[in-house]
C-alpha cells in the first residue's frame, strides 16, 4: 500500500501540474468566450481537487519514521485542506464531517504526514464504530492548552465500543513502510513529542484527543504569533531563503529593516561575526537580551553568552536553534 500511495501521489502531481499550466495558458487567450472561461474555471476547480488528493496521498505514503520534521511542522488549517478528501473517503459516505480550525492557530511540531497517518488510523476505527449509526458525524476540533494544541476527534458512535485498538499501539502496517516498526497513532505521535490521550464519552459522543506540541515552545497559546522577531543578516541568498521558510513555520516573524522593535533573534554569517567591528555591533544585540545565531564554523572563536553556532550543512535544522 505505501508504494501504491507514493506512486499514485507522485504520478498525480506529474499529471496535474501540466493540466494547470495549460489552463493558465488557455485562460490568457484574448478570444475566449465567457462560456469557455466558465468551463475552464470549472476544470481548474476539479483539477485542484485532484491536486489536493495527490497531496493527501503523499502524506499517507511518507515514511513516518524518516521524516525531516524540521521542515514539516503542521499548520492545521492548511493540513486539513490536504487531508479532507482522505478523511471523507475513510468514513462512511453519509457521515457528516466538520472541522473547526482557527486560521491563526500556532503551528505544531508534528509533521503533516505523521498527523495525517495518526488521524486516519483513528478514523479507520471510527468507521467500524459508526457502521450502525443512522446519522454518523465526526468533528475535528483544535483545543488550546498552555503548552500544546489538542486535536479532538469526536464521533457519535453511541454506546458502541471503539478506538480500543488505538490504545494498543495499532501497528497499522498498511500505512507504514517499515514492517515491524511501531507505527500506531500513539507511537507515531510520541516520536514527535505528542501523544494520544485517553478517550472520553459524553452521552452518544466519543472523543479522542491528540496532544500536539507547539512548533515554537517559546510562544504561549494566546500570545501573538508574531511577537518573536528574527533579523536575518546573512550574505548567502540560499541561507536567506532557507531561513525565510523556517521562521514563519516556527510562528515567528522576520524583522523588517525599518521595524522600530528590536530583534529577539539575529541570524548572521561567521564572516561578519568574525569581523571585529561587526562583532561588537552583533554582540550588542545579545547585551539587549537577543540571541545570536551564527552560521558557519567557529574556528576557535571564544564562546559568548547568547551566541550559538550552526553548521551550514545543518541549516535545515535552524528551527531547533530558534
Amino acid at each position, binding site marked *: 500500500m505505501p508504494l501504491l500511495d507514493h506512486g499514485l*501521489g*507522485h504520478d498525480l*502531481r*506529474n*499529471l496535474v*501540474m*501540466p*493540466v*494547470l*499550466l*495549460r489552463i*493558465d*495558458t488557455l485562460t*490568457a487567450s484574448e478570444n475566449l468566450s465567457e462560456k469557455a472561461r466558465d468551463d475552464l474555471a470549472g476544470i481548474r476547480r476539479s483539477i485542484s481537487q485532484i*491536486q489536493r488528493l*495527490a*497531496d493527501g496521498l*503523499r502524506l499517507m505514503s511518507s515514511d513516518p519514521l524518516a*521524516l*525531516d520534521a*524540521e*521542515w*514539516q511542522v503542521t499548520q492545521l488549517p492548511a493540513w486539513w485542506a490536504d487531508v479532507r478528501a482522505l478523511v471523507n473517503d475513510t468514513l462512511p459516505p453519509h457521515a457528516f464531517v466538520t472541522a473547526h480550525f482557527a486560521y491563526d492557530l500556532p503551528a505544531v511540531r508534528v509533521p503533516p504526514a505523521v498527523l495525517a497517518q495518526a488521524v486516519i488510523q483513528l478514523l479507520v476505527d471510527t468507521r467500524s464504530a459508526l457502521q450502525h449509526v443512522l446519522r454518523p458525524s465526526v468533528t475535528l476540533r483544535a483545543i488550546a492548552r498552555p503548552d500544546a494544541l489538542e486535536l479532538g476527534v469526536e464521533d457519535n458512535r453511541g454506546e458502541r465500543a471503539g478506538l480500543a485498538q488505538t490504545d494498543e499501539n495499532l501497528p497499522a502496517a498498511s500505512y507504514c513502510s517499515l514492517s515491524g516498526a511501531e507505527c500506531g497513532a500513539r507511537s507515531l505521535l510520541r516520536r514527535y513529542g505528542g501523544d494520544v490521550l485517553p478517550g472520553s464519552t459524553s452521552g452518544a459522543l466519543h472523543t479522542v484527543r491528540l496532544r500536539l506540541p507547539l512548533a515554537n515552545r517559546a510562544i504561549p497559546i494566546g500570545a501573538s504569533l508574531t511577537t518573536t522577531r528574527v533579523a536575518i543578516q546573512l550574505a*548567502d*541568498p*540560499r541561507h*536567506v*531563503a*532557507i531561513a*525565510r*521558510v523556517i521562521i514563519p513555520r516556527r510562528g515567528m516573524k522576520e524583522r523588517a529593516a525599518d521595524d522600530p522593535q528590536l530583534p529577539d533573534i539575529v541570524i548572521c554569517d561567521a564572516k561578519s561575526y568574525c569581523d571585529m567591528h561587526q562583532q561588537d555591533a552583533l554582540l550588542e544585540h545579545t547585551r539587549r537580551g537577543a540571541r545570536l545565531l551564527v552560521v558557519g564554523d567557529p574556528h576557535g572563536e571564544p564562546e559568548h553568552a547568547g551566541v550559538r553556532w550552526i553548521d*551550514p*550543512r*545543518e*541549516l*535545515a*535544522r535552524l528551527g531547533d536553534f530558534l
Partner: protein
Amino acid sequence: MCVDDNIDLVDALERRLQLEPDFGEFVRAEELSGALDRIREAKPTIVILDIDLPDGIDALALLSDIVRDVETTRVIIFTGHPTGQLITNCMAIGAWGFVSKGTSAERVIRAIRAVVRGEAAIELDN
C-alpha cells in the same frame, strides 16, 4: 530550460512561460542524456531540473556538473517530494532555487524571477 522526463510537463511549462513578456527563448534538450551538453552549448539563464530523472541519471551529479561547467546558469530544482535536507543538500551543491510540483504556475514564475534577480527561492506546496 527544463530538464524533466515528463514531456507533457515540459511542453506545458514552455507554453506558460511564453506568456511572460520578459522571458526569452525556452531551450529544450532532445535527450535527457544529452542535457548537460545542451546546457553547456545554450547557456540558459535558468535550468529547471527535475530531481527524479529516469534511466540512472543522477540529478544531483548533473546539478554539480552544471554548477562547475556553466557559471552563468542558475539551477532551480523541481520535485514532487520536497524535504528540508534535500533542499539544504541541493543548495549546498549550488542550486539557487527549489520548487515543489505541488505549487502553482505563479509561484514557479515568481521563483524564476527571484533567482534571475540574484535571490534564492524556495516554493513549497500550495
